[in-house]
């Protein structure tokens, strides 16, 4: 049970990563490789501040702000210098590797001796009179496990609701139009470069926040933590879309949440069943490749009549 709660907690917190990837890959229709860098950056900023004795809440918020800056950097490289977002993201992400090393003053930071958000949640649980163990489906679960899960649920659901609402405001619709049809967006007075930058800023803020939570949950940050994380986000996104479909922001965002949790549970099950942990990234990458290629191949074979055109 504790293992399941662990997988569930990681799945929930990683859904912020998937939400960021959704915002760039689906809403803006651009693959943003800043993701790897901003995830690691978020982990580095939060861990370093925590190790210096900063309270977990401002340390976590500072990580999100660092992610905004990373997204803004890619946006500026794209809009001011005309470099496409894919290359811009690679450049920023590469540069961030050094930035992380400078921030952490080395390759990794341990959080074993510091107060973190999950511990804060546990303290709040106890302070509010929560019992030291809870029985779920007949198994005892410790407060150290259940309290962080509760915190993640509140935090993640809040972020999802805010994002869903945002995408339906005038500004949010302008961002969506920019990704869906930039020519139309320009003709209707939308500053496409600005909207792309805004999307990148919001997405990388979420991703850095996710990195910060991940580091605190794991109890350490290292410079490798973000490597290839964009592929994990894509895998979760694809799982979610296969479950909820892609019609409208509400369904898509529900898919982000469900997809990430399901993907994490599948991975946890695979590892328990004996999958070599070293093969995790290989398996994830192959999964994303298949998920992208197989439906198109099936379509070709079955020769369904052409559906409505569209890339996003």
């Amino acid at each position, binding site marked *: 049970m504790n293992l399941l709660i662990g997988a569930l907690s990681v799945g929930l917190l990683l859904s912020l990563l998937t939400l960021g990837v959704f915002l760039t890959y689906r809403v803006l229709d651009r693959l943003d490789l800043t993701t790897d860098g901003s995830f690691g950056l978020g982990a580095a900023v939060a861990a370093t501040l925590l190790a210096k004795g900063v309270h977990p809440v401002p340390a976590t918020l500072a990580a999100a702000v660092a992610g905004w800056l990373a997204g803004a950097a890619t946006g500026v490289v794209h809009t001011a210098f005309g470099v496409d977002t894919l290359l811009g993201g690679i450049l920023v992400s590469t540069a961030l590797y050094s930035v992380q090393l400078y921030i952490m003053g080395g390759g990794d930071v341990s959080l074993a001796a510091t107060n973190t958000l999950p511990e804060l949640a546990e303290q709040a649980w106890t302070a509010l009179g929560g019992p030291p163990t809870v029985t779920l489906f007949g198994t005892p679960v410790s407060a150290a496990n259940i309290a962080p899960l509760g915190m993640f649920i509140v935090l993640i659901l809040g972020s999802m609701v805010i994002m869903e609402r945002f995408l339906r405001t005038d500004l949010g619709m302008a961002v969506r139009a920019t990704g869906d049809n930039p020519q139309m967006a320009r003709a209707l007075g939308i500053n496409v470069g600005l909207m792309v930058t805004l999307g990148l800023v919001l997405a990388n803020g979420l991703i850095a926040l996710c990195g910060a939570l991940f580091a605190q949950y794991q109890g350490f940050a290292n410079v490798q933590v973000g490597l290839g994380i964009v592929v994990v986000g894509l895998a979760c996104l694809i799982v979610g879309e296969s479950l909820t479909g892609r019609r409208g922001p509400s369904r898509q965002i529900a898919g982000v949440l469900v997809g990430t949790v399901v993907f994490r549970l599948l991975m946890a099950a695979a590892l328990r069943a004996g999958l070599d942990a070293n093969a995790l990234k290989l398996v994830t990458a192959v999964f994303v490749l298949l998920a992208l290629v197989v439906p198109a191949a099936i379509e070709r074979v079955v020769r369904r009549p052409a559906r409505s055109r*569209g890339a996003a």
Partner: protein
Amino acid sequence: MSHPQPVLELSGLHHTYFPGTPSEQVALQGVDLSVEAGSFVVVVGVNGSGKSTLLNAIAGSVSLDRGVVRFSGRDVTDWPEHRRAAFIGRVFQNPFSGTAPHLTIAENLAIASGRGRRRGIFHWGLGAARRAALAERLDAMDLGLADRLDTPTGVLSGGERQALTLLMATIVRPALLLLDEHTAALDPRSAERVVRLTDQTVQRDSLTTLMVTHSMHQAVRLGDRLLVMHRGRIVEDFAGARKRRLRVEDLLGHFDRLRNTDLVDESAAEMLRRSYV
């Protein structure tokens, strides 16, 4: 008597595609034009005569080598496209260009309603009142789209999309409406329908309009002024009674004369005959 300010003034527009390369192509070589408020100007010309480039230069999606673009006296030559959009409504030739396919009809219209305004996070995208207002506008077009507000535009037919794009271009009254062969990609029935809607909309709102067309029948039937473009220049300008008297045969004869004066080469004349007769 003081003359009213023209809505659009172009002077000395020049544009060359791929300058200095083997595929260099001169698209505009000195276009001067003044369009008065409320006039409906039709532009014709063979492929490559520069008519689409002219529309793009006005909208700001093509940047000029030389020349000045003014809206109501204001120099907007250096304005980017999205800023000029405060004055301009546009319908493109490609029915896929004007709408966002994964967004619903209501969302597309709501985005169009924001043209020329600041887009914030405090304005709710689609409240009940706004939806009702949008449904009413759609209903007036009589396309059966009013009860399909939540349908993604990606599933609409070409004709429905162009009609919707026309509504989107005019839902906030544009100082200038630009129509770039907006019926060329449609089947004859849909094209006729969109032409009728266009005429109705332009008359009802007395919109200042610039329409590029390939159809001689549309050119003769619509508008109160007709420009013939050739090799990046306006070579003929029919207005007032001259425009009203113009018949399809006159226009074809005119293209023949253009050819005879060696402004048009043989292949262009052949193309004209094939596409217009």
